[in-house]
């Protein structure tokens, strides 16, 4: 994006969108590497979705989706859903209808579990799925 190697169409995704901070990209990167990747994903999301709102709390204070640390694969599904109630409430309260998740685990929990369990009525996309759906394919190749 910075080098203008791709052009994004920001008219495709019109729903109010929000960005989920994966614990490993944000809070845990900040601790492990001294840099939390909080803004990068937001810059990309906003480039595709001009209508954007943040959940509260966000960034370093964000709540986990409930499926991290291998929990998506664990045989403790009721606990995982219970855990996710806070995430579900955050999404509901911010009013977004599109949630961008830049992590496989988070996306699966949001899309395949919380969306149904808590009747969120949201669309969930990977960050790269959003970019892929917004990218303009150069005509001459």
């Amino acid at each position, binding site marked *: 994006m910075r080098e203008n190697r791709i052009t994004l169409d920001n008219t495709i995704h019109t729903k109010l969108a929000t960005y989920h901070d994966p614990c490993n990209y944000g809070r845990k990167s900040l601790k492990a590497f001294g840099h939390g990747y909080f803004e990068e994903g937001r810059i990309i999301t906003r480039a595709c979705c001009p209508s954007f709102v943040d959940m509260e709390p966000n960034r370093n204070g964000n709540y986990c989706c409930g499926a991290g640390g291998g*929990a998506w694969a664990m045989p403790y599904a009721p606990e995982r859903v219970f855990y996710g109630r806070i995430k579900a409430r955050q999404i509901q309260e911010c009013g977004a209808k599109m949630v961008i998740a830049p992590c496989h685990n988070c996306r699966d929990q949001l899309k395949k579990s919380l969306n149904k369990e808590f009747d969120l009525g949201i669309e969930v996309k990977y960050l790269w799925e959003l970019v892929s759906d917004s990218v303009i394919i150069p005509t001459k190749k």
Partner: protein
Amino acid sequence: MMYEFKVADLAEEFGVHRNTIRNWINSRTLPAQEGPGKRYAMKVSDYVALCDKFGIIPKVNMEMAVEIEELKTITTAQTGQPILQLGEKTNTLFDDPSWGDVCLTCGTCASACPIAGVNGLDPRKIVRMAVLGLEEELIESSWPWKCTMCGKCEEACPMNVEIVKLMRRLRSRRPRNLVPGPIHKGVAMCLERGNNLGIPKDDFAFLLQDLGEELAAETCPGFTTPLEVRGSRLLITVNSKEPFAEPDDMKWWWKIFYAANESWTVSADNWEGVNWGLFSGDDEAMKTIVGRIVDNLERLHCEALLLPE
């Protein structure tokens, strides 16, 4: 047991002048030792004897002291609880005091944790149990596996207790055959066959080629999947759940690469990008799996690694 006092207080208690107390101490009539902060200490028995002499009621007495012998006589039968021995055990869960000893037991972590209360446990209790040496109970508990190692508790903790490291240590102390769910099996499979789900090399290569042809027909004319292309700029890993269950999802990244005219490749072996050793607490396996990715980078002369997670 010692009775600690200040000269002025003792003088008031016995109704004598402060200098009298000092004289008694100097002449050893009152056998007391000087301590820090102008305080003195004497044996409680000496204090009680002195009180007897003056006919006053002692503020403390021997019955108030819990004798160690007495402690030993408290049996399991009397209390219904095994006696917890403190102080003699080396805590093998901690690398240093920041893992637990510095905990103030304030409970901030428990307030921050979305699953506090599940199974009657929370991060504060886990840290406390670890400090008290209840290792077996913790290793057997399923709680550290329901924790997502999200770090929310740590972010809130005023003492920067290494709660996530402790949770992971608890996981790593589980015998491997008792790791819940498929994650250890995935690690073992990855070590054996190069990916968590054991997808055979030929199937993988065929799938990637097939999907590439689809993408070319759909949106990206001329696209072919660059498998094992030496000298590509980026080496891309793959999450095995995609070729296994959601193959079309791989095309999203590919389309972006196509649009950006990126130079990239996927290796034919050891392409797994999900390192479950991180979650199962298996450092050795993690190292081996990361090492294989580095080997691929070198073998294919790539400049950078992209883990499309």
